[in-house]
Protein backbone atom coordinates (compact mmCIF):
# COMPACT_ATOMS: atom_id res chain seq x y z
CA UNK A 1 0.00 0.00 0.00
CA UNK A 2 1.43 3.40 -0.86
CA UNK A 3 2.24 5.83 1.91
CA UNK A 4 -0.23 8.42 0.58
CA UNK A 5 -3.18 6.16 1.33
CA UNK A 6 -1.82 5.25 4.75
CA UNK A 7 -1.26 8.94 5.44
CA UNK A 8 -4.86 9.72 4.49
CA UNK A 9 -5.96 6.92 6.81
CA UNK A 10 -4.07 8.05 9.89
CA UNK A 11 -4.71 11.75 9.24
CA UNK A 12 -8.47 11.07 9.20
CA UNK A 13 -8.77 12.11 5.58
CA UNK A 14 -10.05 8.77 4.24
CA UNK A 15 -13.79 8.16 3.75
CA UNK A 16 -15.54 5.05 5.08
CA UNK A 17 -14.92 3.01 1.94
CA UNK A 18 -11.24 3.82 1.88
CA UNK A 19 -10.87 3.12 5.59
CA UNK A 20 -12.46 -0.29 5.08
CA UNK A 21 -10.11 -0.99 2.18
CA UNK A 22 -7.06 -0.14 4.31
CA UNK A 23 -8.32 -2.32 7.15
CA UNK A 24 -8.94 -5.25 4.77
CA UNK A 25 -5.44 -4.82 3.44
CA UNK A 26 -4.03 -4.77 6.99
CA UNK A 27 -5.93 -7.93 7.93
CA UNK A 28 -4.62 -9.79 4.87
CA UNK A 29 -1.04 -10.25 6.11
CA UNK A 30 0.95 -9.72 9.33
CA UNK A 31 3.45 -7.54 7.46
CA UNK A 32 0.64 -5.25 6.29
CA UNK A 33 -0.72 -5.03 9.80
CA UNK A 34 2.69 -4.06 11.13
CA UNK A 35 3.01 -1.44 8.42
CA UNK A 36 -0.29 0.14 9.39
CA UNK A 37 0.53 -0.08 13.11
CA UNK A 38 3.86 1.63 12.52
CA UNK A 39 2.09 4.50 10.79
CA UNK A 40 -0.45 4.76 13.60
CA UNK A 41 2.36 4.60 16.13
CA UNK A 42 4.16 7.37 14.30
CA UNK A 43 1.01 9.46 14.32
CA UNK A 44 0.63 8.87 18.06
CA UNK A 45 4.29 9.55 18.67
CA UNK A 46 4.07 12.96 17.06
CA UNK A 47 1.04 13.95 19.16
CA UNK A 48 3.01 16.39 21.31
CA UNK A 49 3.37 19.42 19.13
CA UNK A 50 6.44 21.62 18.89
CA UNK A 51 7.41 23.23 22.17
CA UNK A 52 8.63 26.45 20.60
CA UNK A 53 7.74 28.48 17.50
CA UNK A 54 9.63 27.93 14.25
CA UNK A 55 12.94 29.73 14.06
CA UNK A 56 14.25 32.11 11.40
CA UNK A 57 17.39 30.43 10.08
CA UNK A 58 18.58 33.40 7.97
CA UNK A 59 18.35 35.77 10.92
CA UNK A 60 20.06 33.23 13.16
CA UNK A 61 22.95 32.81 10.72
CA UNK A 62 23.35 36.58 10.40
CA UNK A 63 23.58 36.83 14.17
CA UNK A 64 26.12 34.03 14.49
CA UNK A 65 28.08 35.26 11.50
CA UNK A 66 28.48 38.69 13.12
CA UNK A 67 29.60 37.04 16.33
CA UNK A 68 32.36 34.95 14.80
CA UNK A 69 33.75 37.87 12.83
CA UNK A 70 34.70 38.27 9.19
CA UNK A 71 35.77 35.28 7.10
CA UNK A 72 39.47 34.62 7.55
CA UNK A 73 39.95 32.66 4.40
CA UNK A 74 37.50 31.60 1.81
CA UNK A 75 38.44 28.78 -0.45
CA UNK A 76 36.34 27.00 -2.99
CA UNK A 77 35.19 23.73 -1.53
CA UNK A 78 36.02 20.80 -3.74
CA UNK A 79 33.84 17.77 -3.13
CA UNK A 80 36.20 14.85 -2.57
CA UNK A 81 35.12 11.46 -3.95
CA UNK A 82 31.56 11.80 -2.88
CA UNK A 83 30.27 9.31 -5.39
CA UNK A 84 32.20 6.81 -7.49
CA UNK A 85 30.62 8.03 -10.74
CA UNK A 86 32.05 11.52 -10.44
CA UNK A 87 35.35 10.39 -9.08
CA UNK A 88 37.43 11.38 -12.10
CA UNK A 89 35.77 14.72 -12.25
CA UNK A 90 36.45 15.20 -8.56
CA UNK A 91 40.06 14.14 -9.05
CA UNK A 92 40.50 16.71 -11.79
CA UNK A 93 38.95 19.36 -9.58
CA UNK A 94 41.25 18.45 -6.75
CA UNK A 95 44.31 18.71 -8.93
CA UNK A 96 43.35 22.18 -10.08
CA UNK A 97 42.57 23.21 -6.52
CA UNK A 98 45.93 21.92 -5.38
CA UNK A 99 47.67 23.83 -8.11
CA UNK A 100 46.36 26.96 -6.44
CA UNK A 101 46.83 26.05 -2.84
CA UNK A 102 49.90 23.89 -2.62
CA UNK A 103 53.36 25.26 -2.67
CA UNK A 104 56.18 22.93 -3.61
CA UNK A 105 59.72 23.99 -3.06
CA UNK A 106 62.68 21.77 -3.74
CA UNK A 107 66.05 22.87 -2.44
CA UNK A 108 68.81 20.50 -1.39
CA UNK A 109 66.40 17.78 -0.45
CA UNK A 110 63.99 20.14 1.32
CA UNK A 111 60.29 19.99 0.65
CA UNK A 112 57.52 22.25 1.83
CA UNK A 113 53.85 21.41 1.54
CA UNK A 114 50.81 23.46 2.49
CA UNK A 115 47.15 22.50 2.19
CA UNK A 116 44.11 24.72 2.43
CA UNK A 117 40.83 22.91 1.91
CA UNK A 118 41.82 19.58 0.37
CA UNK A 119 43.84 16.53 1.36
CA UNK A 120 47.22 16.08 -0.30
CA UNK A 121 48.73 12.66 -0.89
CA UNK A 122 52.36 12.66 -1.92
CA UNK A 123 55.68 10.87 -1.69
CA UNK A 124 58.60 12.48 0.10
CA UNK A 125 62.15 12.31 -1.27
CA UNK A 126 62.99 9.27 0.86
CA UNK A 127 59.99 7.39 -0.68
CA UNK A 128 57.87 7.74 2.44
CA UNK A 129 54.23 8.46 1.75
CA UNK A 130 52.31 11.22 3.43
CA UNK A 131 48.67 12.27 3.44
CA UNK A 132 48.44 15.86 4.60
CA UNK A 133 45.05 16.92 5.96
CA UNK A 134 43.44 20.24 5.07
CA UNK A 135 44.82 23.31 6.79
CA UNK A 136 48.25 21.79 7.45
CA UNK A 137 51.85 22.62 6.77
CA UNK A 138 54.81 20.29 6.45
CA UNK A 139 58.52 20.84 5.94
CA UNK A 140 60.82 17.91 5.19
CA UNK A 141 64.63 17.80 5.13
CA UNK A 142 66.25 14.56 4.12
CA UNK A 143 69.89 14.61 5.27
CA UNK A 144 71.70 12.27 7.68
CA UNK A 145 68.45 12.24 9.52
CA UNK A 146 65.04 12.48 7.93
CA UNK A 147 63.44 15.44 9.66
CA UNK A 148 59.89 16.57 9.22
CA UNK A 149 58.31 19.60 10.90
CA UNK A 150 54.53 19.46 11.03
CA UNK A 151 51.79 21.93 11.86
CA UNK A 152 48.36 20.41 11.47
CA UNK A 153 47.59 16.79 10.73
CA UNK A 154 49.31 14.16 8.63
CA UNK A 155 49.38 10.43 8.15
CA UNK A 156 52.77 8.86 7.34
CA UNK A 157 53.82 5.56 5.77
CA UNK A 158 57.53 5.68 6.42
CA UNK A 159 60.02 3.97 4.09
CA UNK A 160 62.30 1.65 6.01
CA UNK A 161 65.82 3.01 6.45
CA UNK A 162 67.62 1.74 9.55
CA UNK A 163 70.54 4.14 9.09
CA UNK A 164 68.57 7.34 8.88
CA UNK A 165 65.84 7.67 11.51
CA UNK A 166 62.66 9.45 10.50
CA UNK A 167 61.75 12.17 12.98
CA UNK A 168 58.59 14.24 13.09
CA UNK A 169 58.64 17.40 15.14
CA UNK A 170 55.21 18.68 16.05
CA UNK A 171 55.49 21.53 18.49
CA UNK A 172 56.75 20.17 21.79
CA UNK A 173 56.47 16.60 20.66
CA UNK A 174 59.07 14.58 18.81
CA UNK A 175 58.20 11.29 17.16
CA UNK A 176 61.01 8.95 16.16
CA UNK A 177 60.01 6.25 13.77
CA UNK A 178 61.32 2.84 13.06
CA UNK A 179 59.59 2.12 9.72
CA UNK A 180 55.85 2.36 10.19
CA UNK A 181 52.47 3.88 9.48
CA UNK A 182 51.28 6.47 11.94
CA UNK A 183 49.45 9.74 12.26
CA UNK A 184 50.34 12.99 13.97
CA UNK A 185 47.74 15.61 14.78
CA UNK A 186 49.25 18.89 15.91
CA UNK A 187 47.33 22.02 15.00
CA UNK A 188 48.84 25.26 16.34
CA UNK A 189 45.79 26.12 18.35
CA UNK A 190 44.99 22.67 19.59
CA UNK A 191 45.60 21.80 23.20
CA UNK A 192 46.60 18.23 22.57
CA UNK A 193 49.13 16.81 20.15
CA UNK A 194 48.11 13.32 19.13
CA UNK A 195 50.24 10.50 17.76
CA UNK A 196 48.47 7.35 16.60
CA UNK A 197 50.15 4.19 15.30
CA UNK A 198 48.62 1.94 12.67
CA UNK A 199 51.48 -0.53 12.33
CA UNK A 200 55.12 -0.73 13.34
CA UNK A 201 56.62 1.12 16.29
CA UNK A 202 57.37 4.74 17.16
CA UNK A 203 58.92 6.58 20.04
CA UNK A 204 57.25 9.76 21.23
CA UNK A 205 59.22 12.27 23.26
CA UNK A 206 58.18 15.48 24.94
CA UNK A 207 59.70 17.61 27.68
CA UNK A 208 57.91 15.55 30.31
CA UNK A 209 59.02 12.12 29.20
CA UNK A 210 58.80 9.53 26.49
CA UNK A 211 56.63 6.58 25.50
CA UNK A 212 57.02 3.86 22.92
CA UNK A 213 53.93 3.05 20.93
CA UNK A 214 53.00 -0.13 19.10
CA UNK A 215 50.27 -0.70 16.52
CA UNK A 216 46.85 0.23 17.85
CA UNK A 217 48.20 2.64 20.46
CA UNK A 218 48.18 6.37 20.65
CA UNK A 219 49.69 9.03 22.85
CA UNK A 220 48.46 12.49 23.60
CA UNK A 221 50.54 15.40 24.82
CA UNK A 222 48.58 17.96 26.78
CA UNK A 223 50.23 21.31 26.07
CA UNK A 224 48.74 23.08 29.07
CA UNK A 225 49.53 20.34 31.59
CA UNK A 226 52.78 19.40 29.82
CA UNK A 227 51.83 15.79 30.19
CA UNK A 228 52.30 12.87 27.82
CA UNK A 229 49.77 10.04 28.19
CA UNK A 230 49.24 6.75 26.43
CA UNK A 231 45.79 5.67 25.21
CA UNK A 232 44.01 3.10 23.08
CA UNK A 233 43.23 4.02 19.49
CA UNK A 234 39.46 4.53 19.16
CA UNK A 235 37.46 1.63 17.69
CA UNK A 236 36.80 3.41 14.42
CA UNK A 237 39.62 5.35 12.78
CA UNK A 238 40.34 6.90 9.41
CA UNK A 239 44.00 6.97 8.47
CA UNK A 240 44.90 9.72 6.06
CA UNK A 241 41.78 10.37 4.05
CA UNK A 242 40.91 6.88 2.84
CA UNK A 243 42.28 4.08 5.00
CA UNK A 244 39.54 2.91 7.29
CA UNK A 245 40.11 0.82 10.33
CA UNK A 246 37.65 -0.75 12.69
CA UNK A 247 38.52 -2.53 15.87
CA UNK A 248 35.54 -4.19 17.47
CA UNK A 249 33.39 -1.30 16.29
CA UNK A 250 29.61 -1.71 16.53
CA UNK A 251 27.73 -1.83 13.24
CA UNK A 252 25.99 1.37 14.24
CA UNK A 253 29.42 3.07 14.47
CA UNK A 254 30.46 1.51 11.18
CA UNK A 255 27.35 2.74 9.37
CA UNK A 256 27.88 6.20 10.83
CA UNK A 257 31.52 6.30 9.72
CA UNK A 258 30.70 5.14 6.19
CA UNK A 259 27.97 7.74 6.07
CA UNK A 260 30.38 10.59 6.82
CA UNK A 261 33.09 9.29 4.51
CA UNK A 262 31.06 8.28 1.48
CA UNK A 263 27.88 10.27 1.91
CA UNK A 264 25.83 7.09 1.71
CA UNK A 265 23.00 6.05 3.91
CA UNK A 266 23.18 2.58 5.42
CA UNK A 267 20.18 1.13 7.20
CA UNK A 268 20.33 -1.99 9.33
CA UNK A 269 17.14 -3.93 8.90
CA UNK A 270 17.00 -5.34 12.41
CA UNK A 271 18.29 -4.63 15.90
CA UNK A 272 20.38 -7.81 16.09
CA UNK A 273 22.63 -6.46 13.32
CA UNK A 274 23.64 -3.56 15.54
CA UNK A 275 25.23 -6.00 17.94
CA UNK A 276 27.74 -7.24 15.36
CA UNK A 277 31.21 -5.92 16.08
CA UNK A 278 33.52 -5.39 13.16
CA UNK A 279 37.27 -5.70 13.14
CA UNK A 280 38.59 -4.91 9.68
CA UNK A 281 40.61 -2.45 7.69
CA UNK A 282 40.01 -1.08 4.22
CA UNK A 283 42.67 0.58 2.17
CA UNK A 284 41.14 2.93 -0.34
CA UNK A 285 38.30 0.56 -1.23
CA UNK A 286 35.05 1.69 -2.84
CA UNK A 287 31.94 1.60 -0.67
CA UNK A 288 30.54 -1.40 -2.60
CA UNK A 289 33.58 -3.52 -1.72
CA UNK A 290 33.52 -2.44 1.91
CA UNK A 291 29.86 -3.36 2.29
CA UNK A 292 30.43 -6.68 0.52
CA UNK A 293 33.24 -7.58 2.91
CA UNK A 294 31.16 -6.61 5.92
CA UNK A 295 28.17 -8.61 4.75
CA UNK A 296 30.35 -11.64 4.01
CA UNK A 297 31.79 -11.42 7.50
CA UNK A 298 28.43 -11.51 9.22
CA UNK A 299 26.40 -13.44 6.65
CA UNK A 300 24.32 -10.41 5.77
CA UNK A 301 22.67 -9.41 2.52
CA UNK A 302 23.33 -6.03 0.95
CA UNK A 303 20.54 -4.38 -0.94
CA UNK A 304 21.11 -1.17 -2.86
CA UNK A 305 17.80 0.65 -2.90
CA UNK A 306 19.16 3.87 -4.36
CA UNK A 307 22.46 5.12 -5.65
CA UNK A 308 23.53 6.21 -2.19
CA UNK A 309 21.25 4.17 0.01
CA UNK A 310 22.01 0.62 1.16
CA UNK A 311 20.15 -1.75 3.40
CA UNK A 312 21.84 -4.56 5.31
CA UNK A 313 19.75 -7.53 6.25
CA UNK A 314 20.48 -10.77 8.09
CA UNK A 315 20.11 -12.66 11.35
CA UNK A 316 22.67 -10.51 13.11
CA UNK A 317 24.94 -11.41 16.00
Amino acid at each position, binding site marked *: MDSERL*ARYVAGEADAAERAAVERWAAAAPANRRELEAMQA*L*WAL*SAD*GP*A*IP*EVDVDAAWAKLSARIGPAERTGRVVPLHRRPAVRWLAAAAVVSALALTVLFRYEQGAQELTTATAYLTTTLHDSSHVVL*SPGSHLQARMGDRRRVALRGEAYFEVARDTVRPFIVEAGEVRVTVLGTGFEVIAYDTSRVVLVRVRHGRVRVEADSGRVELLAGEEAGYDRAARRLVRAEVPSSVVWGDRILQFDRASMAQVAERLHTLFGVRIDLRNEALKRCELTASFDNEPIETILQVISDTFGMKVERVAKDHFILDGDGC
Partner: protein
Amino acid sequence: MEVQRIIAGDRQAFEQAFRTHYRPLCAFAGKYVKDGDQAEDLVQDLFFRLWQDRERMAITTSLKAYLFTAVRNRCLNAVQAMGRMRPLDEDLHDQVEEGARAEEEHTARSARVQAAIEALPEERRKVFKLSRYEGLKYQEIAQRLGISVKTVENQMGKALKTLREELADLLPLIVLGLVWRWLKGGGWG
Protein backbone atom coordinates in the same frame (compact mmCIF):
# COMPACT_ATOMS: atom_id res chain seq x y z
CA MET B 1 34.65 15.08 5.42
CA GLU B 2 32.19 17.68 6.68
CA VAL B 3 33.88 17.74 10.07
CA GLN B 4 37.40 17.96 8.66
CA ARG B 5 36.43 20.89 6.45
CA ILE B 6 35.06 22.78 9.42
CA ILE B 7 38.14 21.98 11.49
CA ALA B 8 40.28 23.28 8.64
CA GLY B 9 38.43 26.59 8.86
CA ASP B 10 36.17 26.23 5.83
CA ARG B 11 33.49 28.77 6.58
CA GLN B 12 31.23 27.71 3.74
CA ALA B 13 31.11 24.17 5.10
CA PHE B 14 30.34 25.66 8.51
CA GLU B 15 27.50 27.79 7.16
CA GLN B 16 26.12 24.79 5.30
CA ALA B 17 26.17 22.73 8.51
CA PHE B 18 24.48 25.56 10.40
CA ARG B 19 21.72 25.92 7.83
CA THR B 20 21.12 22.17 7.73
CA HIS B 21 20.99 21.54 11.46
CA TYR B 22 19.90 24.79 13.13
CA ARG B 23 16.13 24.36 12.80
CA PRO B 24 15.99 20.70 13.93
CA LEU B 25 18.39 21.40 16.80
CA CYS B 26 16.28 24.30 18.10
CA ALA B 27 13.11 22.18 17.98
CA PHE B 28 15.02 19.46 19.79
CA ALA B 29 16.31 21.82 22.49
CA GLY B 30 12.85 23.40 22.82
CA LYS B 31 11.47 20.14 24.19
CA TYR B 32 13.93 20.28 27.05
CA VAL B 33 14.08 23.94 27.97
CA LYS B 34 10.54 24.85 26.85
CA ASP B 35 11.57 28.36 25.89
CA GLY B 36 12.23 29.47 22.32
CA ASP B 37 14.82 32.13 23.11
CA GLN B 38 16.73 29.90 25.47
CA ALA B 39 16.70 27.04 22.95
CA GLU B 40 18.05 29.32 20.22
CA ASP B 41 20.71 30.82 22.51
CA LEU B 42 21.86 27.38 23.47
CA VAL B 43 22.18 26.19 19.87
CA GLN B 44 23.79 29.48 18.77
CA ASP B 45 26.32 29.14 21.54
CA LEU B 46 27.12 25.57 20.55
CA PHE B 47 27.84 26.60 16.95
CA PHE B 48 29.89 29.55 18.17
CA ARG B 49 32.02 27.25 20.34
CA LEU B 50 32.29 24.71 17.53
CA TRP B 51 33.79 27.37 15.28
CA GLN B 52 36.01 28.93 17.93
CA ASP B 53 37.41 25.63 19.16
CA ARG B 54 37.27 23.78 15.89
CA GLU B 55 40.92 22.73 15.94
CA ARG B 56 40.47 21.18 19.33
CA MET B 57 37.41 19.19 18.37
CA ALA B 58 37.79 15.46 18.57
CA ILE B 59 34.62 14.52 16.75
CA THR B 60 34.67 10.83 16.00
CA THR B 61 31.01 10.51 15.05
CA SER B 62 29.14 12.32 12.30
CA LEU B 63 28.64 16.04 12.79
CA LYS B 64 24.91 15.51 13.15
CA ALA B 65 25.34 12.92 15.91
CA TYR B 66 27.80 15.20 17.66
CA LEU B 67 25.54 18.25 17.48
CA PHE B 68 22.50 16.45 18.86
CA THR B 69 24.48 14.89 21.68
CA ALA B 70 26.04 18.24 22.54
CA VAL B 71 22.69 20.03 22.50
CA ARG B 72 21.12 17.37 24.68
CA ASN B 73 23.90 17.68 27.23
CA ARG B 74 23.62 21.45 27.26
CA CYS B 75 19.88 21.18 27.75
CA LEU B 76 20.23 18.70 30.60
CA ASN B 77 22.72 21.04 32.26
CA ALA B 78 20.43 24.01 31.78
CA VAL B 79 17.46 22.14 33.18
CA GLN B 80 19.54 20.89 36.10
CA ALA B 81 20.74 24.42 36.80
CA MET B 82 17.14 25.53 37.12
CA GLY B 83 16.95 23.09 40.00
CA ARG B 84 14.75 20.24 40.96
CA MET B 85 13.37 19.55 44.44
CA ARG B 86 14.52 16.31 45.97
CA PRO B 87 12.48 14.89 48.85
CA LEU B 88 14.33 13.36 51.78
CA ASP B 89 12.02 10.39 52.33
CA GLU B 90 13.65 7.45 50.53
CA ASP B 91 10.53 5.76 49.21
CA LEU B 92 9.21 9.02 47.98
CA HIS B 93 12.62 9.77 46.54
CA ASP B 94 12.51 6.51 44.53
CA GLN B 95 9.05 7.29 43.25
CA VAL B 96 10.10 10.73 42.20
CA GLU B 97 13.21 9.31 40.51
CA GLU B 98 11.06 6.80 38.66
CA GLY B 99 8.71 9.54 37.52
CA ALA B 100 11.60 11.73 36.50
CA ARG B 101 13.12 8.93 34.46
CA ALA B 102 9.87 8.30 32.61
CA GLU B 103 9.55 12.01 31.97
CA GLU B 104 13.11 12.20 30.67
CA GLU B 105 12.44 9.34 28.27
CA HIS B 106 9.30 11.03 27.08
CA THR B 107 11.15 14.31 26.57
CA ALA B 108 13.99 12.60 24.71
CA ARG B 109 11.48 10.90 22.42
CA SER B 110 9.41 13.91 21.58
CA ALA B 111 12.58 15.99 21.12
CA ARG B 112 13.73 13.56 18.46
CA VAL B 113 10.33 13.56 16.80
CA GLN B 114 10.24 17.34 16.63
CA ALA B 115 13.79 17.47 15.28
CA ALA B 116 12.87 14.98 12.56
CA ILE B 117 9.82 17.04 11.60
CA GLU B 118 11.86 20.25 11.43
CA ALA B 119 14.41 18.51 9.22
CA LEU B 120 11.78 17.87 6.53
CA PRO B 121 11.95 20.03 3.39
CA GLU B 122 9.98 23.27 3.79
CA GLU B 123 6.74 22.52 1.96
CA ARG B 124 6.51 19.00 3.39
CA ARG B 125 7.09 20.34 6.90
CA LYS B 126 4.36 22.97 6.54
CA VAL B 127 1.87 20.48 5.14
CA PHE B 128 2.56 17.98 7.91
CA LYS B 129 2.33 20.54 10.70
CA LEU B 130 -0.91 22.06 9.40
CA SER B 131 -2.46 18.60 9.27
CA ARG B 132 -1.08 17.27 12.53
CA TYR B 133 -1.12 20.30 14.78
CA GLU B 134 -3.78 22.57 13.37
CA GLY B 135 -6.06 19.73 12.38
CA LEU B 136 -6.68 21.18 8.93
CA LYS B 137 -8.24 19.08 6.18
CA TYR B 138 -6.19 18.48 3.02
CA GLN B 139 -8.48 20.87 1.13
CA GLU B 140 -7.85 23.63 3.69
CA ILE B 141 -4.09 23.04 3.65
CA ALA B 142 -4.08 23.27 -0.14
CA GLN B 143 -5.89 26.61 0.02
CA ARG B 144 -3.71 27.96 2.82
CA LEU B 145 -0.49 27.17 0.95
CA GLY B 146 -1.78 27.81 -2.57
CA ILE B 147 -0.98 24.31 -3.80
CA SER B 148 -3.12 21.47 -5.19
CA VAL B 149 -4.78 18.82 -3.01
CA LYS B 150 -2.77 16.26 -4.97
CA THR B 151 0.45 17.94 -3.81
CA VAL B 152 -0.78 17.93 -0.22
CA GLU B 153 -1.47 14.18 -0.44
CA ASN B 154 1.90 13.56 -2.00
CA GLN B 155 3.76 15.61 0.61
CA MET B 156 1.91 13.98 3.51
CA GLY B 157 2.76 10.54 2.17
CA LYS B 158 6.41 11.46 1.80
CA ALA B 159 6.52 13.16 5.20
CA LEU B 160 5.23 10.07 6.99
CA LYS B 161 7.55 7.81 5.01
CA THR B 162 10.61 9.91 5.91
CA LEU B 163 9.62 10.21 9.56
CA ARG B 164 9.05 6.51 9.76
CA GLU B 165 12.54 5.77 8.47
CA GLU B 166 14.14 8.48 10.59
CA LEU B 167 12.42 7.37 13.79
CA ALA B 168 12.41 3.63 13.06
CA ASP B 169 14.17 2.78 16.31
CA LEU B 170 11.45 4.47 18.38
CA LEU B 171 8.55 2.79 16.64
CA PRO B 172 8.69 -0.89 17.75
CA LEU B 173 8.45 0.27 21.35
CA ILE B 174 5.47 2.40 20.62
CA VAL B 175 3.77 -0.37 18.66
CA LEU B 176 4.19 -2.67 21.65
CA GLY B 177 2.73 0.02 23.87
CA LEU B 178 -0.28 0.35 21.63
CA VAL B 179 -0.86 -3.40 21.47
CA TRP B 180 -0.70 -3.55 25.23
CA ARG B 181 -3.20 -0.75 25.54
CA TRP B 182 -5.38 -2.48 23.01
CA LEU B 183 -5.30 -5.74 25.00
CA LYS B 184 -6.03 -3.95 28.26
CA GLY B 185 -8.75 -1.75 26.90
CA GLY B 186 -10.27 -4.33 24.58
CA GLY B 187 -9.88 -2.28 21.44
CA TRP B 188 -8.50 0.90 19.95
CA GLY B 189 -11.22 2.91 21.64
